[in-house]
């Protein structure tokens, strides 16, 4: 693990160039350019608002601005997380030439995929930040200090899973489709369009999803100015750390077989 990290730091220029390539290609090939960074989160947020509008119409309550702000925050984080897993899981099989012809620390590929998603996330988040400032949505409280920590845990969780999934996709070609299907439906068991409190006694069950406490926490401190549910955040952090360790451990263990199995 330490050796792997040292190698990664040692080759940071390569990591930078691979991530830069991902971004450059994506924006070069499409007319829309940076609109891509906004499109997917915008679709998710719109879908969330429609769902929530339907819910509030049935219960006879008005949809509040805060609720819309909450869905925006959560939709953005979900788009980053799902995009990270989607792009990183195919990052090794998408570069067969580099995997079989040149030696380099291969964890660079999934990590670079996450970095490029992080840039998209940054663009979208910046836009949302401006909108929140103008519309005075969101709570400018000290609780915002939780945001970097919560995001760091989200990134760690994504990285751990990305390492495992990218290797699994290399060895088993059908994992790619499995990942697609799971990501498509995981939005229903993750509190993106709803809040876990709506499920009352089932709330804790939903919180077992390690992404749930993080998303809920981000909504709480950004939109409502209250502290995240710390025991559950600690649980997520523990899962993220374990995923990260397991990700690096197994990735490095399987790496010698990559070139002959791809």
């Amino acid at each position: 693990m330490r050796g792997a990290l040292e190698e990664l730091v040692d080759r940071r220029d390569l990591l930078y160039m691979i991530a830069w390539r991902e971004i450059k290609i994506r924006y070069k090939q499409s007319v829309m350019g940076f609109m891509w960074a906004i499109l997917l989160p915008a679709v998710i947020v719109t879908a969330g608002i429609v769902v929530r509008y339907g819910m509030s119409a049935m219960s006879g309550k008005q949809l509040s601005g805060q609720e819309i702000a909450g869905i925006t925050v959560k939709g953005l984080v979900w788009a980053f997380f799902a995009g990270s897993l989607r792009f990183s899981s195919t990052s090794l099989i998408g570069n067969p030439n580099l995997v079989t012809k040149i030696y380099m620390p291969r964890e660079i590929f999934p990590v670079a995929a996450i970095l490029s998603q992080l840039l998209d996330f940054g663009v979208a988040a910046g836009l949302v930040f401006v909108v929140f400032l103008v519309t005075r949505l969101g709570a400018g409280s000290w609780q915002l200090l939780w945001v970097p920590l919560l995001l760091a845990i989200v990134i760690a969780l994504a990285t751990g899973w990305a390492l495992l999934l990218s290797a699994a996709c290399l060895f088993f070609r059908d994992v790619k489709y499995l990942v697609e299907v799971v990501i498509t439906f995981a939005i229903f068991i993750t509190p993106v369009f709803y809040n876990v409190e709506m499920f009352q006694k089932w709330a804790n069950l939903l919180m077992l999803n390690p992404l749930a406490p993080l998303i809920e926490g981000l909504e709480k401190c950004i939109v409502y100015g209250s502290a995240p549910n710390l025991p559950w955040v600690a649980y997520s952090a523990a899962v993220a750390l374990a995923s990260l360790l397991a990700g690096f451990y197994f990735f490095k263990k399987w790496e010698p077989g990559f070139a002959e199995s791809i």
Partner: protein
Amino acid sequence: MATDIVLRVENVSKRFARGEMHDSLRDFIPSVFAKIAGRSRASATAKNEFWALRDVSFELNRGEAFGIIGANGAGKSTILKLITGIMRPTTGTIEVNGRLSALIEVGAGFHPDLTGRENIYLNGTILGMTRAEIDRKFDAIVEFSGLADFIDTPVKRYSTGMYARLGFSVAAHVDPDILIVDEVLSVGDIVFQNRCIEKMNSIIRGGATVIFVSHNLRAIAELCPRSILLEHGQIASAGPSQEVLKAYLESSSAQGRRSLSSHLFIASTKIRSAHLENVAFDSGEKIWLDVGVECTGESEPFSVVLFVNDDRQYQVFHTSTEYLGYPAVSLKAGERFSCTFELDLNLAGGTFYFGVLLYRFNVEKTLDRLFPAVTIFVNTLAEVRGVLNPHPKITAFGSPVEIESTNEATKR
């Protein structure tokens, strides 16, 4: 001195699974259950394994140029992939001291949509340079490639040759302690190939260690004093390149025969100089090629054709018993025919392939063909380049003369 060894390969073996393993979970999960249920398929998998390398050992000293030769599938690429760390050996150890750069495929890692400039940075970092290092070497890389005018064009618009030139230029500027080169010289035009060889020579002179894998035997002989020959994953010969090349040529001439007529076949071909059987000759030597033909039934009338190809399989010349004024021969069952071609070996240095045909000229029909019947290696002492050695001599008169020009415009 132990510190001078930059690469140590010790008893390295590599086993591959033949064919597809479990490529998908759909196949893998049932097989796991089958294993649990006790239906072992161990015997089936053992049959599907093969050893790409067996017990290969060698050492390289700092500053040495080292050649690896062998037929396709002999394990050349595998040993390079093990040295670079792309794969890990099944058994044995590989020890590398120093920065290693490999040119296993030129331009691997280029992205077609990026410009030449962007790809230099991308490929450079892939090969182990830092961005600051590339900033410093950028101009030299572009100049060597000769692509200054196209540097901001996406490489998908490049020709294959331009692609290879840019790839080699980046790799040659990595300044590695150990440079591994696999077959890159087979791309690009002659001018660029020669520049590559020159560049590699200067890298070697600069003190780097070079491992060179090629089918271009001439380049191996020119660049590498020491080589190994791989055959079926094992070292068949090791030592000075000349001896290893000889071993390679001897083993390869044993292959490649195919009889076209059921009755008539080339039974033996032997090449000798002054009655010594050999495969390495000096340019200008007189050589004799003996061809033996056997017949198992009534034969058509035939002539023996001899042709010689160079290492690019360009036919250098051909002749035949017919051209030389010997009438066509017919054989009956059990009869033999033999003839000897005498040649002045006025060829320049390099590898040459001798082929033999049994040919019926009046109906233009090939009865048997053997190629390469013999492969030889020609050494030149004189400075001739090319295919031919017409033994040039120089006669010069007087001392260097300055020619005065009356026309100012042509002076410059």
